[in-house]
């Protein structure tokens, strides 16, 4: 991908987004999918008002949330404790609802900003939301690509160029590579404000 300008650039006004319409559409689409993946299927009316307020499940809840079956979702909402299942369940009860909500609202904030007419300049909050959401999207794609080790991640580029993989793997891997490059530029742009 030949960009004359860095895809994200720090400026006094905020983080400039130098992506074309189609590239921003791809991002918005992926952010929408992330939002959907994090939907636990419970209509707002069924969520305990206290839970919605403080982000934790009520102590009377008979079915505390378990580690998600989908490995991608389990990577976004991992166990908090590896040695003590009780501590892990307690952690999940306290945090999962809040984490889901904040990840989803961050994805929507980022998508909303990218949907503005060009030229898009992100506020600090929007840039941070996009950086976190882009991380989550890459974590999901990484699971789908079965990246388990650093070596898997390092050989992705070669496997992509060799072209021996299934078409769906190739499509996902190309998006993953582009997102990784964008994320690096975004981290550099956001780090300027540290």
């Amino acid at each position, binding site marked *: 991908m030949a960009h004359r300008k860095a895809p994200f650039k720090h400026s006094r006004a905020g983080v400039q987004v130098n992506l074309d319409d189609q590239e921003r559409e791809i991002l918005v689409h992926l952010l929408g999918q992330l939002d959907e993946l994090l939907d636990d299927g419970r209509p707002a009316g069924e969520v305990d008002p206290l839970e919605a307020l403080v982000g934790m499940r009520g102590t009377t809840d008979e079915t505390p949330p378990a580690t998600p079956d989908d490995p991608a979702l389990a990577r976004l909402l991992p166990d908090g404790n590896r040695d003590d299942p009780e501590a892990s369940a307690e952690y999940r009860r306290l945090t999962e609802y809040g*984490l889901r909500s904040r990840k989803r609202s961050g994805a929507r904030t980022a998508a909303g900003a990218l949907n503005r007419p060009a030229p898009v300049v992100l506020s600090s909050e929007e840039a941070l939301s996009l950086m976190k959401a882009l991380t989550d999207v890459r974590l999901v794609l990484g699971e789908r690509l079965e990246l388990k080790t650093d070596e898997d991640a390092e050989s992705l580029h070669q496997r992509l160029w060799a072209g021996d993989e299934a078409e769906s793997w190739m499509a996902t891997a190309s998006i993953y590579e582009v997102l990784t490059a964008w994320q690096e530029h975004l981290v550099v742009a956001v780090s300027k404000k540290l």
Partner: protein
Amino acid sequence: MSIAPVELEKPDTVEQPDTDVPWITLVWNDPVNTMSYVTYVFQSYFGYPKSKAERLMHDVHEKGRAVVSNGSREEMERDTEAMHEFGLWATFRKDD
């Protein structure tokens, strides 16, 4: 948080009180998060100087994990939750 009744009688044996046993937050290596992002998170969330953030990042990358903070259990749960919000693979546990 606990709803267990407060123990009024002191135990006969002298046990190390929980407050003296620090808990820790660990961040584990993963193949997706980049070195620059992990360093950014350690700097921005914990307020660590760049050198310390980079050292911890290298530990995660090369040793597979690093202890990124220590304190009470509640504080470590909070740090773990913050790391999960950033997409880092973190856990908390009692320090051995």
